[in-house]
C-alpha cells in the first residue's frame, strides 16, 4: 500500500482534510461571495442567522458576519502560516545547531530557549505590542518567538538522540564534514518531526492569534479577526448570540481540522513520533 492509499484509510487525516478544504474554500472565496467585510448599514444591526441577504446575520454596525468571518479565516491562516513558517525554520535551525554542536553552544542556546519558554505568551505579546504597537506584526513576532523555542527544544532533543546513532557515528568516523553529516544524515530524520510539530503549531497559532485579538492585542478594527469578533459579539450574547457564536465556531472548525490533520500525519509518517509530539503538547 503506497502512502496515498494509506492516507485515504486514515480517518483523522481524511476528516481533517475535508474540514480544512472547506475552511480554505471559505477563506478563499467567501469574501468574493459575501462582499467587503467593512460595509456597514447602521439600520441592520444585530440580525440573526438566516436573515435574507445575511446568511450568518449581522453585527452591531450592520456588517455581514459571513463576510467578516470568511475574511477572518484569511487573517487567522495568514498569521498561523507565517508564525509556523518562522518557527519551523528558526526552531529547527536552532535545535540542529544546539543538538549537534553541543558544549557551550548547547548550554547557552538551551538557557536562552528555557528563558523565553518561561514567559507566558500573553506577556511576550504585550511586550511586543508595547515595543512596536498593536496589530498583526507583533502577534506574529510574539507567537513566532514562543513557537520557535518550543520547536527548538524538541528538535534539539531529537538531534541529540540521532547524533548517537550508528550511521552518524560512522559518518563522523569516515571523516565527513559536519555540514554533510547534518544535511545528509540528521536533517532528513528531523524533518518528519518538524512537519508533525508544524501542524500542531498551526493550531496553536490560530488559537493564540484569536486569544490575543480577543484581548485587543491583535488585528485592529475594522480588520475582522475572529478573536476580536468573539470579543465584540459577547457584549451582545443575550441579544444576538450569533455575533460571538459564528466566529467561535469558525475557530473551532479550523483548529479541529488542523489537529486532525496533524494526528493523521503523525500516524501516517511514523507512529513512533507520537512520543515526541506528546512531549511537545505537554510543554
Amino acid at each position, binding site marked *: 500500500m503506497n502512502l496515498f492509499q494509506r492516507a485515504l484509510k486514515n480517518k483523522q487525516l481524511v476528516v481533517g482534510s475535508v474540514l480544512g478544504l472547506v475552511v480554505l474554500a471559505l477563506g478563499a472565496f467567501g469574501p468574493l461571495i459575501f462582499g467587503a467585510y467593512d460595509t*456597514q448599514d*447602521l*439600520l441592520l444591526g444585530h440580525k440573526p442567522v438566516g436573515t435574507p441577504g445575511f446568511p450568518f446575520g449581522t453585527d452591531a*454596525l450592520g456588517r455581514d458576519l459571513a463576510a467578516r468571518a470568511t475574511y477572518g479565516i484569511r487573517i487567522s491562516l495568514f498569521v498561523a502560516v507565517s508564525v509556523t513558517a518562522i518557527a519551523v525554520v528558526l526552531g529547527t535551525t536552532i535545535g540542529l545547531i544546539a543538538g549537534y554542536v553541543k558544549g557551550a553552544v548547547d548550554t547557552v542556546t538551551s538557557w536562552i530557549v528555557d528563558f523565553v519558554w518561561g514567559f507566558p505568551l500573553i506577556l511576550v505579546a504585550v511586550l511586543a505590542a508595547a515595543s512596536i504597537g498593536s496589530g498583526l506584526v507583533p502577534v506574529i513576532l510574539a507567537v513566532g518567538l514562543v513557537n520557535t523555542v518550543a520547536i527548538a527544544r524538541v528538535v534539539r532533543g531529537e538531534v541529540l538522540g540521532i547524533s548517537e546513532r550508528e550511521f552518524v557515528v560512522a559518518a563522523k568516523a569516515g571523516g565527513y564534514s559536519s555540514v554533510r553529516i547534518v544535511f545528509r544524515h540528521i536533517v532528513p530524520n528531523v524533518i518528519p518531526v518538524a512537519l508533525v510539530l508544524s501542524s500542531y503549531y498551526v493550531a496553536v497559532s490560530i488559537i493564540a492569534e484569536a486569544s490575543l485579538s480577543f484581548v485587543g492585542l491583535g488585528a*485592529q478594527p475594522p480588520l475582522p479577526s475572529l478573536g476580536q469578533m468573539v470579543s*465584540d459579539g*459577547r*457584549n451582545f450574547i443575550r441579544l444576538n448570540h450569533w455575533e460571538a457564536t459564528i466566529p467561535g465556531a469558525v475557530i473551532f472548525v479550523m483548529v479541529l481540522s488542523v489537529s486532525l490533520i496533524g494526528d493523521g500525519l503523525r500516524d501516517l509518517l511514523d507512529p513512533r513520533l507520537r512520543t515526541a509530539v506528546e512531549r511537545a503538547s505537554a510543554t
Partner: protein
Amino acid sequence: MESSANHDPVVNGATNLVANYQSGKISRRQFGKGLLALGLSTGAASAILAACGGSDSGTSDAGETTDTVASGEPKVGGQLREGYNRDVSKHDPITTNWYDPAFSCIYETIVTDDYDGNTVPQFASDWSVSEDGMTYTFTIPEGRVSHSGGAMGAQQVAEILQTIKDTSFIGGVSTVPMEGYSVEGNTVVLKMKNAWLGALNPHKTGYWALANIDTWKAAGGADPSSTYGTESADGTGPFTHTEWVPGSHTLVTRWDAYPGSNTPYITNKGAAYLDSVRWSVITEAGQRATQLESGELDTLIGPSFADLERLRGNPDLTVIQHPEWSGYHLTMNRDYPEFFGDQLTRQGLSHALNRQGMVDAILFGNGDPTYGPFPKTDRQYEPKVEEYNQYDVELAKSKLAEAGWVAGADGVLERDGTRFEFDYVVEDTTEQKQVAEAVAQQFKEVGVIANLKVVDRSVWFEQASGEGRKAAPMALFFWLWPVPLDILVIFGSSETIPVPNFSHAVEPTIDAAIDEWRLAGTEEASVVASSKFQLEWADKLPYLPLMNQYATFVHQNYVKNWQPFVWNLYPVYNDVWMDK
C-alpha cells in the same frame, strides 16, 4: 427615554413603574412596592394603583404595601456593590482628569444642585451673591474637620479653592472671570473680575471638591509622584477613602464622625447608613448587566444599552434614565493642516456622518445626534445648530471636492500629493470602539481613510494631548460634565491648546463668543453668548460633534434612596440604604 421632559427622579421612577405595570412587565405587588420605594405615601401609591390598574385593590396587596412601609425605616449596615462603566480616576480633585462617583462619598462641594437645578448649600451652610454680581459669600460652619481630623474652617476652604483655581488645569481655564478667594470671619468670599452668571457652576463639580489642603500638600501636592488620591484622600464627605485599585475597584467606608449634610434634599442628617461602597470597574459592556442580574451587584452605572430592554423587564430591578450632559466628539488636530486646516474639508467630513444612524445602532436609540457642541436637552441648547452638519453624503463629497480633494486610483482622496489617510486614536471601551468603527467606515465611503488605533485610557490621553503633531491627527473623546458650556469652552478656546483643546483649533469667532459668555452677568446675555458659541462651533467645526447618550442607572429594588438625577452626575450616597 423615561424622563427627557421631567427631571424629578420620583416622577421619572413613577412613570417607569406605570409603564412597566401597564405593559404587564411587573405585577401589581411589585408596582406597589416600587411606588413606595420611591418615597410615595401609601395614599399616593394607592391612588396611582387605582388609576393604573382599576379599583379592585385587593387586601393582600394593601397588606404587602403596608408591610413595606413598616419595613421602610432606613436600615444601617451593608456594603453597596456598584458596577461602574469606567476605570477609576485618582481621588484628587486638583490633578484628576475625571471625577468618579467616589468623589460624591469622600468629598463635599461648597454648593450643589437640587432636583430642579437650583443652587443649594452643601459644605457651606449658606451662600449669597451681591447685587452687582461681583462678590459671592459662602458661610462656613464652625468646627468642621476632615477625615484626618484636620480643621476645615473658612481659611482652609478658601485655600483649597484658591489652589484649585491656580493649580488645576480645568480650574484655571474655567474660572477666568474669577479674581480669587479670601476669608472674612467665618465666610469665604469670592471676588469676580466681572459679573458672571456661571460663577457657581464649577464649584458644584468634583474638580472643586473640598479636600484638606494640608493633607494634599503633605502627600505631594500637584507633583506627579504625589500619593494623594491614590493612597489617601482627605475630604469632609460621609465616607472615607479606603482602597483605590485602577482597573479593578474603589472602596470607601463610612465616616462615623460625619456631622450630617447641609444640603436640604439630603434627608439623612447624620452618618451614612451604609458601611461601605465598593465600585467595580466593568469596562466590558456586556458584563455589567449580567453581574447585576446574577446578584453580584446592587447598583449599576451605565449598563449596555443592548441590555436595557431586558433590565426594564426584570421586576427586581429599577431603571432610571435622564438626559446626560455628555457627548462624543472627534478631534481634528489643526497641526495637520493638510487634512483639517480648511473649513470646507471639516464640513465635508461632518456631512459624511449619519449621526442618527449611530444613535440608533450603537445607543439603541438612547441618545440624540448632536450637530453642535451641546446635547439638545441642555437649557441653553440652540436648535439652529441643526441647520448644520446634517447627514448628506453627496454634499460631503461636493464639499471635499470643492476643498480640492480628488479621488486617487484606489478611490482614496488626494490633494497636493497628500493622501487623505491618518491615524485615529480611540479608547478601548466597547462603546467607543463601536463609535470609532462606524465613523471610520463612513469616512471611507467618501474616500477618507481613518486608521484606528485602539489604546487604553492613559495612552489615549497621552496620544491626544501632545503638542503640535505629537498629538494624533484625530481622536474620539467622550466628555461628561454637569454644565456643558463650562467644559466645552475650554475644549474650544485657543487659550487651552494643547490640553484640553485637543484639536489645537484657533477660531477667533469662537474665542469672541467665549469672551462674551464670560462677561455675561444676566441670563439673557448668557443665552445670547451661548447661542453664538454653539453656532460658531457648528459652522467652524473645531471638533466634529457626534451624539450624546442618556444617563442610565439600574438598581436592585432593595436598594433605597439611590436616586441619581439630571443635575448631578452621580447619586447621593449618604441617603442610600438597603432593605435586605
